[in-house]
């Protein structure tokens, strides 16, 4: 029977449509796929992508490692304050342009090491913004606005120095013509602000975030700080959610106010336990200091770094094998205490 309702998207039709092929329609009931499939489908050479998390917490590491294994090249990457994920992607040779506020991994690398090297050697192009500006840029994208204003950065090189040249910006339809714009407030001195800085919206081809819980359809729940993940998620043309736990829809719908990601934004759901490892995932596991310290050591030396990549990234098929390689003892040591959400008294030197 043919559906006659053309005014709204008909759920029965969508489900009919999806039978026998991959679920890529946002209202589809089941968007679960493997990480390999999700990255193959959505992350292409030259894609503009953003990744969630902040320094050493909830970086979508499993997805990052899969991008590296698939040898995706020429990515244009957008992040605010990101650590291990940015550094691995750059170290893996996947990135050619980055718009960023902060590249650091806390105590483990005050400045991300491969990031630092790539910028110093000029192997990637960089544009510097602030954390708030990057967040507003994602929000503008999520709101469908060309820009949003702030009072941050007057008088600084964030405004005066452009990483991407005016000409390069003009020639690239996927990048706005201006890095940012200073203007007099059209409201005079209302709110005691005479001027504002306008920051341009970001709309990525794909955003990847790692959440604690998701259902098959893509409703997602983040526990603890959300950083700018929600704005990043909603500013994307396509969204990949990796999750610690794939749960029943009822588990999430029973407390909808705790869900930040409605399924309508989501294209792929990938169940990856320890998907943020070696960064932390609140209530599940802590960051692994040993891994992050070993990484920092390897990243400083070309030979050690290529050995690191061979063993921990290219030498494993996915996160499950990486976790097995690291070994039970270390994985147990970082297991989160259910009360505080982190591993108490963990050795973190």
């Amino acid at each position, binding site marked *: 029977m043919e559906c006659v309702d053309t005014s709204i998207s008909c759920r029965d039709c969508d489900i009919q449509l999806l039978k026998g092929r991959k679920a890529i329609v946002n209202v589809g009931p089941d968007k679960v796929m493997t990480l390999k499939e999700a990255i193959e489908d959505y992350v292409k050479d030259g894609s503009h992508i953003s990744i969630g998390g*902040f320094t050493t917490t909830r970086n979508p590491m499993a997805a990052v490692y899969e991008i590296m294994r698939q040898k995706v090249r020429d990515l244009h990457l957008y992040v605010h304050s990101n650590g291990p994920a940015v550094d691995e992607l750059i170290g893996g040779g996947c990135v050619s342009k980055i718009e960023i506020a902060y590249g650091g991994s806390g105590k483990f690398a005050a400045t991300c090491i491969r990031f630092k090297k790539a910028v110093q050697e000029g192997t990637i192009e960089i544009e510097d913004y602030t954390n708030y500006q990057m967040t507003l840029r994602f929000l503008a994208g999520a709101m469908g606005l060309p820009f949003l204003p702030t*009072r*941050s950065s007057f008088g600084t090189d964030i405004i005066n*120095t452009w990483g991407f040249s005016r000409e390069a910006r003009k020639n690239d339809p996927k990048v706005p013509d201006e890095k940012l714009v200073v203007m007099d407030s059209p409201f005079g001195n209302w709110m005691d602000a005479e001027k504002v800085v306008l920051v341009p919206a970001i709309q990525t081809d794909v955003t990847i975030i790692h959440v604690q819980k998701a259902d098959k359809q893509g409703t997602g729940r983040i526990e603890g700080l959300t950083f*700018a993940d929600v704005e990043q998620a909603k500013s994307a043309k396509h969204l990949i959610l990796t999750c610690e736990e794939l749960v029943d829809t009822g588990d999430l719908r029973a407390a909808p106010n705790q869900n930040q990601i409605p399924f309508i934004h989501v294209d792929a759901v990938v169940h990856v336990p320890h998907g943020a490892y070696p960064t*932390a995932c609140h209530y599940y596991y802590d960051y692994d200091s040993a891994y992050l310290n070993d990484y920092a050591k390897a990243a400083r030396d070309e030979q050690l770094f290529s050995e690191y990549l061979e063993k921990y990234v290219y030498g494993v098929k996915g996160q499950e094998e990486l976790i097995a390689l690291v070994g039970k003892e270390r994985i147990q040591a970082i297991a989160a205490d259910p009360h505080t959400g982190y591993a108490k008294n963990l050795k973190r030197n």
Partner: protein
Amino acid sequence: MEYTSREMMTIVAAREIKNGDIVFCGTGISMLAAMAAKNINAPESVIFFETGSIDARLEELPLAVADPRVMYWASSNSGLLDAFATMQNRITGEHVIGILGAAQIDKFGNINSTVIGDYYKPRTRFSGSGGACDVASFVPRSIIFMQQEKRKFVNKVDYLTSPGHLTGNDGRKKAGLPPGGPELVITNMAVMRFDDATKEMYLSGYYPGITKETVLENMEFDVDVSRAEEVEPPTASELTILRERCDPQRLIL
């Protein structure tokens, strides 16, 4: 009681924090200063992170501002959008004191945490602004931690990441910034403040065993030293609380 210069710096910063202050902390020593203040002299100060955590109970020292340790027992865990709005907001922002660090600083407290050398061909690339430029733009008071070295106290920063008093006097207002700016600079040798009118840096204090001359030798530009006094060293009780309650694992100290 013996103490290190790191401990001295932490305690000097902690003493500046008052009850009712909302303390914006970065990674490392700034976090420790906020914890020390909370445990020693300002129990009613509020520890605040740009990641969106407000008034967490820091039972263990976080190693990054996104560390799950900043999420425990917080009044609220939100995200960057809320955190920076709290500082840009003129009602809540008035109570925020920022704690920052940098690779270079000039006499008006403008700081660089982006590059040494040419921006397009940097000799050294650092992490970048993160939230530092936002905080320095929005809040009325901030503390800057620096190492006292000639190459760090420079006539002109290689890249101006976060605004201090810009060109001095009413430079901030002219540029469009809210009022405020850095209040003091704490180094491993001394404490610097900014003149009320000119907004130029002056030497406010030097640590026991350090002379004014030594401080000046470790700066590219001259500052007024006529107002400088010796800084009180940390007390035994301050040190005990700092070591035993704030960083027993010696992660930062």
